[in-house]
């Protein structure tokens, strides 16, 4: 077991000639709340995509809890314990709230097709367990009442929450949040900050988040990495990084 939950070494990818991300070195301690910021197009989401197996890195490696996951498929990575949310909410919009969460829990049920179709005892058992777990999770996020609502009918803030709940349902060690506060008003953002902190404490979770909202970042993150043009600009504790003149320059221009 490693000291760090996530460690990336010279992680990078290039599309044709474009280096979308290069030499990204992250060291995220267990149970940390780590921020990844940078101007638009800096490669933040690309890093997420690398970490979740959407893209295969062209250079470098990354380790989850000491285990090398470089080049593994999305499914494998998910199984090993990285879950994510998306910048644009990607719920299973025609499915009910609880079904969204249950999809996330799929990796915890080992009931095969045959058992499901013929409703063998294991099906009933796992189904019951999963449902109880899913409702537990929904209750934590205040969604239990609406568990039968079709996901796309939820209000925006709750959709965000549901996405986080769904990611947690996969039973991850590391949670990646891609701009969770996008499109939220200050009050909703404040609520969200509470939720994120609660998730970390309640689920003993390590969280890496991308965010533009500086109030959120400075409010809850322990450490930060700033990306610009695919490369790391600065990294370290929040206050230190945010006062770094280079960072200020990158954000505000010359």
């Amino acid at each position, binding site marked *: 077991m490693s000291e760090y939950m996530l460690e990336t070494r010279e992680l990078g990818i290039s599309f044709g000639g474009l280096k979308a991300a290069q030499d990204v070195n992250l060291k995220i301690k267990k149970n940390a709340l780590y921020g990844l910021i940078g101007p638009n197009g800096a490669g933040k989401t690309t890093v997420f995509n690398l970490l979740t197996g959407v893209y295969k890195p062209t250079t470098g490696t990354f380790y989850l809890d000491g285990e090398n996951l470089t080049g593994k498929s999305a499914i494998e990575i998910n199984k090993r314990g990285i879950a994510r949310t998306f910048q644009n909410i*990607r719920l299973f*919009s025609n499915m009910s709230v609880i079904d969204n969460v249950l999809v996330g829990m799929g990796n915890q049920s080992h*009931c095969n097709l045959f058992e499901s179709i013929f409703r063998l005892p294991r099906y009933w058992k796992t*189904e019951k367990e999963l449902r109880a777990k899913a409702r537990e999770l929904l209750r934590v996020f205040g969604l239990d009442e609406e568990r039968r609502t079709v996901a796309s009918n939820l209000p925006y803030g709750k959709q965000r929450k549901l996405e986080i709940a769904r990611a947690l349902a996969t039973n991850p060690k590391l949670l990646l949040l891609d701009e969770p506060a996008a499109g939220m008003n200050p009050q909703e953002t404040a609520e969200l900050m509470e939720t994120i902190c609660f998730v970390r404490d309640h689920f003993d979770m390590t969280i890496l988040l991308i965010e533009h909202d500086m109030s959120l970042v400075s409010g809850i993150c322990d450490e930060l990495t700033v990306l610009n043009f695919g490369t790391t600009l600065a990294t370290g504790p929040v206050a230190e990084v945010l006062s770094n003149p280079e960072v200020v320059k990158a954000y505000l221009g010359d």
Partner: protein
Amino acid sequence: MNAQQKLPAEKKKIKLKHYINYLLILALLIPFSITGLAGNIKGSTSLLLTQIAYSMILAVSLNLVVGFLGELSLGHAGFMCVGAYLGGYFANQMHAVIGSKLVVLILSALVGGLMAALFGLLIGLPTLRLKGDYLAIVTLAFGEIVRTVFMNQEIFGGALGLDTQKYGKTLYIAALVFAIVTVFVAQNLMRSKHGRAIQAIRDNEIAARAMGVNITYYKLAVFVIAAFFAGIAGVIYAHNTTPVDYGFFSFNYSIEILVMVVLGGMGNITGSLLAATVLTFINVKLTTQLSGDLAALKFLLYALILILMVMWNNAPKLAGLRAKVNFRNLVLWIKQTVFRLTHKTPEGGEEPPTNAAWDKIPTKIEMDAVLSTDLKPDRSFEADKPQAPTKGDKQ
């Protein structure tokens, strides 16, 4: 942690919606098998029921692909063709060995289904990575290839078609039982972990992958299962009709199955069953009633029925009208009228029948399935935009 406190448990009650599909088929099966087993059923009714049964099997199995998995398939008749020819051929060989027609039917259904599933696997394995309409055209191509190849085989009777032995007038009983099996498998599959994963793929493939759903596996599984049942439908066809005629399995028939699925409602098994029944009934009645010089009117009427049904179900401008005039409100209205008539006392604040209350209940299986088509939203409008938040909650 206070999370240990008990949640209010889900109420344990037998939900009708879980059984309505079986009830529907049983409603056909029971009365008719009583008359049928008494040897007292009209030939035309028996044929009609058989045809309804295999249409049901086809529609439900295609709905797995189109409605639940969200991939358009225009080659379902191709799998049926495989089942009909290979299952029919196998049955011909078996008739010599086994005396019981029922045993032959069941064995050949298995063989036909498995062969169709094998074809489904072979065609699905390389092509399922194709997207949307590209997959649709590949399935169409597959259907055309299959029947052309079968037509040219002398052992399958060449252009005249494969000679098969008819099962007889009671085939529809077996066929309806097969339909029940299909519904059983489809419904149980979709109401399980696997079904949720499949629907997740339909709703958002990227998110599903991120949630650890094995996309290829599930796509292939659905494709193979659907092909299996299409193959069974083909075997039933082969026991119902001789010669097995390659012309039947044309692209037009695939489309006809698709029409049943779309009219019945995507991802709605009850709807598929109802649409299969209604459309087959209309089709057969139009064919047999409009004889002689009137035959040309058949397609005219059928086309008009199709267009009007689709318009009524889907036209955005008719949404308001739809909300007012539908099956539920009709029942509601009847209830109220009955109530008013029986209770004579006029209620002052009686609410007008609105659809709003019903909208909140997200049951997938609804009785007016034929009238409500909850389709995949038109993605062309929101290509890469974020999911539109519900109005008013964003400010």
